[in-house]
């Protein structure tokens, strides 16, 4: 059913299929073609903020890791500012060298995914709501996923900010909010947030219709 009198309808989505790597991360498909490759490392030498690794697995309905999935993340900088002209927040400096976006594929053997980035700052919420707790937006596609899935990762050490977050608080069942928490630990002196995603099952991650 048409929602409006808009002249056009959105192009339908189709699965990215098992060979998504060829187009988006050709090195993982097994060849070199582009001089400049997009990657899972969001950092430049002068990027401000606490350097972190975000890693985890994406599990299917049987609990097996999905090993041919492509993930992208989108986030604000350490000041809580997006590198985009729609962000008109006052008093938060833009960092031209930090795009705030990266992509990776889950490992063909283990299923692990990894991003190297910084912990973002808090971004204003919609008008009339509290600031949003620091979070990273994720979008994922793979064989068997007909339309890309959107979710967010929040940081489990941001207890107070998370408790006040206008998005987490909308989710009806508090137990489901926990599916959006990345878990902080230190490994070899590096800060790691572990964020596992469950496509279905008892621990199904909250996915958003954004």
């Amino acid at each position: 059913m048409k929602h409006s009198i808009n002249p056009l309808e959105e192009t339908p989505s189709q699965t990215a299929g098992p060979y998504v790597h060829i187009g988006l991360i050709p090195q993982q498909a097994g060849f070199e073609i582009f001089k400049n490759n997009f990657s899972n490392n969001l950092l430049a030498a002068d990027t401000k903020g606490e350097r972190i690794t975000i890693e985890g697995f994406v599990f299917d309905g049987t609990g097996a890791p999905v090993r041919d999935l492509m993930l992208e993340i989108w986030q604000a900088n350490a000041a809580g500012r997006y590198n985009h002209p729609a962000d008109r927040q006052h008093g938060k400096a833009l960092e031209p060298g930090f795009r705030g976006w990266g992509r990776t594929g889950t490992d063909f053997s283990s299923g692990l995914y990894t991003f190297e980035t910084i912990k973002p700052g808090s971004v204003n919420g919609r008008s009339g709501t509290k600031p949003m707790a620091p979070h990273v937006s994720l979008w994922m596609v793979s064989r068997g996923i007909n339309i890309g899935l959107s979710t967010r990762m929040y940081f489990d050490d941001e207890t107070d900010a998370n408790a006040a977050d206008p998005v987490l608080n909308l989710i009806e069942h508090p137990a489901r909010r926990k599916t959006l928490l990345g878990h902080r630990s230190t490994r070899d002196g590096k800060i790691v947030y572990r964020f596992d995603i469950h496509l279905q099952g008892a621990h199904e991650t909250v996915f958003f219709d954004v």
Partner: protein
Amino acid sequence: MVDEFGEFYQRNRDVQPPAFTPGYKTSALRSPRIPLWSLQNSLSEVTGPMFRPDELGPLDHDLIKNYAHDGDPVGERTIIHGQVLDENARPQAGVLVEIWQANAGGRYRHVNDRYFAPIDPNFGGCGRTITDAEGRYAFRTVKPGAYPFRNHINSWRPAHVHVSIFGSGFAQRLITQMYFEGDPLIRHDSIAQTIPDPAAIERLVAKLDLNASIPLDSLAYRFDIVLRGRRSTLFENKLQGN
């Protein structure tokens, strides 16, 4: 007036495939079963990554030349072009379009593809470009071949090109597949048929565009892409808090 960076219209899921489509078997264990949580846009959704033309190489959009080692790839020389618009029919300028595809024999250059059609030494199978001021894009390639895949015993993919598009906001992010006009495999394809609305499937079928072909050189197909549109701000409805 249309706010250049306003919120997006709610996605019309009636023109999109549902997550769980048992005819395409792999979807069964990879589909969320709890309804998506509807989220009003915040800055996190109306913003998104921006890309500059100087990040791409001069041949990145030319699949006939961007992996050529000792000659051109085998296959029907084909131009794929079109315009990226939003639901308001506004051209989407400066957005990144990436494509990937099998070679003319239906084989992908990928470590996990073991179909016995041969790899083409001169064909990588991927390209990328950024739309111009009118939202237009163009690739040159060879037409991909059909190939079998394990779904039913005798499942074949119609010739198709995978297309990945960014808009100006992360909530517009889209990956789809483009088919070719007149391909009889489309109606048998478990993946195209994940879309319940036949008119929506038809919008994924690129039309032969003889006027854009190059005589004695290349055929052309036209594939326009529509991303989600942004809301007008008829009355004050401030997205951003201060």
